[in-house]
């Protein structure tokens, strides 16, 4: 069970959170301007990386706030936690690979 450091509440067990998938996939400003392929890419395609991965979590059984987490999908180590709208922190060339 992950131990997630909510930016508002501190470290809590994973059972208090909901997973929200890959982070930094903005909803297109004007979906009607996109081709079917581009829209399908937004809808369905995700990186599914092995290694550090920026993803969204919601503290749904706590403060109900959404935030970003960089988690190593192999070791499950949580490398960084940052608020919505913030840019991902620089983890250095090795740790931040793939973000």
């Amino acid at each position: 069970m992950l131990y997630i450091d909510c930016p508002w509440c501190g470290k809590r067990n994973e059972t208090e959170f909901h997973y929200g998938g890959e982070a930094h996939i903005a909803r297109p400003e004007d979906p009607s301007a996109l081709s079917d392929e581009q829209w399908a890419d937004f809808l369905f395609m995700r990186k599914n990386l092995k290694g550090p991965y920026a993803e969204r979590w919601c503290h749904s059984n706590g403060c109900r706030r959404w935030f970003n987490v960089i988690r190593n999908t192999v070791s499950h180590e949580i490398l960084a936690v940052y608020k919505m709208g913030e840019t991902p922190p620089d983890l250095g060339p090795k740790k931040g690979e793939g973000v």
Partner: protein
Amino acid sequence: MTGSHRTQAGGRIDRQKKINFTFNGKSYVGMEGDTLASALLANGVHLLGRSFKYHRPRGIVAAGAEEPNSMVQLGEGAVTEPNIRATQISLYEGLSASSVNVWPSVEFDVSAMNGLFAKIFTAGFYNKTFMWPRDMWIKLYEPVIRRAAGWGKAPTTSDPDIYDHMHLTVDVMVVGGGPAGLSAALAAGRSGARVLLIDEQSEFGGSLLSLNRQIDGKNAAEWISETVSELAGMEDVTLLNRSIAFGYYDQNYLCVLEQRTDHLPQAMRKGKVRQRVWHIRAIEVVLATGAHERPLVFANNDRPGIMLAGAVQTYVNRYGVLPGRKMVIFTNNDAGYETAIDAKAAGANIAAILDAREEADGELIEAAKALGIRILPGYAITGVEGGKRVKAVEVRKIQKGAKVYTSAPERIACDLVAMSGGWSPVVHLFSQSQGKLHYREEEVCFVPGTPVQKQSFAGALNGSFSLSACLEEGAKAGAEAATKTGFTAKAANALKVDEPAMGRIEPFWIVPGARPVGEGGAKHFVDLQNDTTAADIELAVREGFESVEHVKRYTLTGFGTDQGKTSNINALAILSGILDKPIPKVGTTTFRPPYTPVSYGALAGRNLGDWSDPVRITSIHDWHVASGAEFENVGQWKRPWYFPKAGEDMHAATNRECLAVRNGVGVLDASTLGKIDIRGKDAAEFLNRIYTNAFAKLGVGRVRYGLMCHEDGMVFDDGTTARLAEDRFLMTTTTGNAAVVLDWLEEYLQTEWPELQVYCTSVTEQWATVSIAGPMAGKVMAKLAPEMNLSNDDFPFLSFKEGTVAGLKARVFRISFTGELTYEINVPWAQGRALWEAVMEAGAEFDITPYGTESMHILRAEKGFIIVGQETDGTTTPQDLGMGWIVSKKKPDFIGKRSYSRMDTSRTDRKQLVGLMTDNPSEVLPEGAQLVFDKNAPRPMPMVGHVTSSYYSAALGHSIALALVKGGHSKMGETIHAPLLDKTVTARIVDPVFYDKEGEKLNG
């Protein structure tokens, strides 16, 4: 005979305290401090059970958690537990246990004839045998083979014991209370850090309890007791014995099972918590889990009386038991010699030590020689005499690399074989923590590789088997862990240890005999619990299973309650030999939790019955109960399902309830509907983006029905939303989906459109909702709210009013889920019951009828109204539902819009919502029934859809159904069939609105 195999003195048992127990119905006496295994051995009992497939007689092999054989059924009645290892059961007064997998008795077992059919029980026999024909499943496989291959029996009544869950956060957790773990805990504890030390045994000390050692000039026992009492005196140190770490998960989350009363007589357990599951978060973890001894793989190495050498040493030194009087030792390392020396000192006769190594010298070998023990270097056991107990062994000179030994055999009589094939570090928890193993050629074992979490390793787990190394590594690891968590710690000075020097180990994975392995009657067991032999592994490879994971599954090696603690390394070493690949290249199988079995009771803790899940009830619930309602669970809510009158079944009750709503007036408790208060200057804009239809221009006081879709265009919730004020809305959601919808709204507000000023609040439990529906609803309403103008002009459909109803401040909505004139009255939650009773009183003269969710479902289906999750399944668009009218063509964007022009969503042969009328008006189709156009089509028939809702409509006197059918919208009037198990039902495709198509009844 009692205690006839006890040594004269010594051990950690209390010889004054006798304990009575029974095994297989026979009475025995043991001593305080015994395990069931040691007490049985003290009574000369070796034969404990029969093996899994071949029903061969089996005895005790080990002295701890790694025991593969001696599983027993412990206790009787409600507290009986199957498959508990006798080596882990602390003896208590009145204990009663019996063998598993035997019939009629362990001495004479019918299924032992399986051994005669051994050829069909080889590797993969499940895969090969349990195939066709299907009848054989019913006649043979299930009743006969599965029963013969079972183990213990689960209790048939519910568990009467109490279990707790505990939560603890510590700086340093030390797993394992042997010499390494004790010194780690001491070093960390002295720094002031919060430390947890756990050990699975009844007392701390680990291997020290079995060995004759001196630490700092003191007996090991004295050192243990001094160390434990110093730890116990530390305020921030927690000590848990009889506690086994069974799972190591992400970010140093470990689960520990503490056995609190299992060692007590039944009478002393009453009212006490039997076991606790501890949920631990540790900043640093020190693993000091020790090592398990490996068996040697030789012909018929499974006979009772063949044990691990270290286990024999444990029984002699710790429990004061001589498991045999005439022992043969078979070893490939020095440890076996110490067993021989200790056993001889305790009174055993050592017939010979067979050393697989050609050359062996060193302190222990010299000591054994000095005692006059016969030593045979370069010798191995190639045969065993005796079925239920070893009687003699056949030994031969080893011919290195040969598949057959032609050397002359010698017969050595004995009643016990102590074997040592080296040591396997207990890497299970490290593996569970996702760590990769590293193979140490010199020590012939796998040890933890690079740490993957905040963890460190000490002692035998590291392949450091000497006591001095254990103490030193433990102290170092404990001090370092404490330092990393911010405390100042130093490893104490090294302690002076007296211990014999241990020489090298020489790998010796399989012992052939006069015939090659797998030929003749002899079996070379690798996994005793699963009856896997070396020949099975060879067979698996011949049949193409070369990956270690495939071999495991095909031969069952490493499965079962012991998870291959003694067999895994031997199996993969033999595989490595067959494949001619080095051991590290073959790799290991995955170790998964739990390390040892955990009962369901412990996992459930107190989350039982009413505590297993929250129950949500409305403020009117007690009235429903008193009125004899049957309930249905909707999410966590209890909702009245129907209100049967005396003698009515569900069908009669719902017929009556539905007709009352259609012809008179009915009342429904709709309090469970999700309600979300949405406020802020951008609330209208927000709803306009969330719903498929327009909300921006909804007037204050008006209500609108809306569909919510995901970005992929699929429907995921629906409900009505009222505009309470310019900047305030009240949204309703389906009962089971309220929390999900709130999360969804928050997600968009926080992640996509943070610029919108909108605030969402769940008010589901702030408002009780009573819905009055039917042609007479207006008359009831007029009595309840005499001052409210109920005329259709002033209070039209899809509007709401605030006012006084039955003297209560209320919001009244004119919406309808039945097609009838409906008033949904909302009052503060606590007044729900008062309102309900006022409604019942006012409606009495119109015979107002309470109805439940079943009638609600029928009434809405008569009108063709969908239920999300019933007519939809996450692949259904509004257009599929025939609800294109609710999808705005004018709005430039809303969630889902772009997806309606995707190729897949614009197909004309999508499954579309239609109504079905069966040819036979009383035939109610089963929900979920598959539909076909051609009932004579050959199988597999092309399926074109399924029934989503199906009921008997009393108002129509006909069954009705809703269904999703491929291209259904263009197939009105066509015939369709539902092939069922015993018949085929034919129906006509019709419009999904069955009742009052023109909507004339909406205004009463």
